[in-house]
């Protein structure tokens, strides 16, 4: 079984995240780049399956060339190979172009199962898994909080405010997972030293038949951009016997009730 895990280099979740107001792109120099934690968890799902079963795990990312070191962490954790789509023409790609590019790379690599996080920490789009499934024309199980992988199917649970659901699909399929799944393993020294000997394929958009400037495909356009306003002080309600009423009024006034 071949499992592809989609990973992403993101600005450190605990650092400052900034947009470049000229280009509208994330300012990648503003904080330390890290492997997105949700992608690490997705990789852990794949690796723990591979620990006990025959499975080849591939980490895949669309990212600038300098993200190679971050992607290699996936190899250090235990993935067998990596595929990076690195192309200056893809800078600022919207979700549609990202999905088309990754779907082409997934098809080229071959897969039985694609595992992604439910949404990235930086873009927080959350629709990429569904777009990939649509483009690959395979079933999609989203937001799984538990995963069981069998020889020809994948199943799992999804938690919502109203209850839990059991979902399953025949392979090949695309699944996305939530933070309910376990923390990823640490890459150990042996893994880090083995990582540099593992296959690492770097592809350009043209290798995948993707033209980032293709105007026949719908794409999103950024019309305005602004800095996030600084946080202002909140409203403090002092309870003088009528605190509950005041809070209720506040909620109604701000249409939060």
């Amino acid at each position, binding site marked *: 079984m071949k499992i592809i895990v989609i990973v992403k280099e993101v600005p450190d979740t605990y650092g400052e995240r900034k947009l470049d107001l000229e280009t509208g792109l994330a300012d990648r120099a503003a904080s330390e780049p890290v492997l997105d934690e949700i992608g690490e968890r997705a990789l852990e799902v794949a690796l723990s399956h591979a620990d006990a079963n025959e499975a080849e795990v591939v980490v895949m990312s669309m990212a600038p060339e300098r993200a190679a070191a971050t992607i290699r962490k996936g190899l250090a954790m235990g993935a067998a190979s990596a595929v990076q789509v690195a192309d200056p023409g893809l800078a600022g790609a919207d979700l549609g172009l990202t999905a088309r590019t990754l779907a082409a790379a997934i098809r080229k690599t071959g897969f039985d199962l694609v595992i992604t996080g439910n949404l990235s920490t930086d873009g927080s789009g959350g629709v990429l898994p569904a777009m990939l499934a649509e483009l690959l024309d395979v079933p999609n199980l989203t937001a799984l909080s538990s995963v069981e992988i069998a020889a020809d199917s994948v199943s799992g649970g999804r938690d919502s405010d109203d209850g839990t659901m059991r979902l399953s699909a025949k392979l090949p399929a695309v699944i996305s997972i939530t933070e309910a799944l376990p923390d990823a393993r*640490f*890459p*150990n*020294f*042996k893994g880090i030293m083995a*990582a540099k000997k593992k296959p690492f394929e770097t592809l350009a958009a043209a290798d995948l038949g993707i033209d980032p400037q293709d105007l026949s495909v719908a794409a999103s356009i950024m019309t305005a951009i602004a800095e996030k306003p600084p946080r202002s002080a909140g409203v403090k309600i002092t309870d003088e016997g009528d605190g509950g009423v005041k809070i209720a009024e506040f909620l109604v006034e701000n249409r939060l009730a």
Partner: protein
Amino acid sequence: MTEERDALIQAVREFADLELAPNAERWDAEKHFPVDTLRLAGQLGLGGESVREDVGGSGLSRLDAVAMFEELAKGDTTIAAYISIHNMVAWMIDTYGDDAQRERWVPGLAAMTDLGSYCLTEPGAGSDAAAITTSARRDGDDYVINGVKQFVSGAGSSAVHLVMARTGEPGSRGISAIVVPDGTPGLGFGRNEEKMGWHAPRGHQRDHAAGRRAEPSGRGRVTTNAGRAVRDRRPSTRDLGYA
């Protein structure tokens, strides 16, 4: 700095941030020696940093090791110090032990499923290796050790104690390092010493209480002349200027 070295140090930083820093204050307050966390450190590869790879070591350079201890010390200085001491034991057996000693002890030390204690300091001699009075007398294949050690980090949790004892002439050249497995008859532990800000590694305990019993206080097998090894390997938080 190479990308690989960067990745190694990043891995240690993550370990220190997630596993050491959030717990350091509590471990010190509760005098807790975090054996489970040390197992994780072993899985990472921190148990035998400079140990050869055929016995499970990571085969890293001294420079790599110093950079790693810098990261560990940011998380918990005392546990970083213990791990450095444990590494001295693993390295010394790997370097000076015979094949049987290497195969018996080093894989477990490298994985930190076995912990090591380095028994040098004595109540009367401090860490002045040249002045120790603990003696070791040859008895067949073994040595019979008599003496008292103090401030033995990890004592009580360790599978192996590396005991510096005098086997020859006065001064540093007359000292050997002797492998004493846990459970060796006569090996005994005293009270956990009070050491301000240095509680977690149990850097304590009087070891090998001579004279408490009629029987010999410890038997072990000789590993090496210890003087040079101590000079070479006394590492790494000390390199950072703590100690």
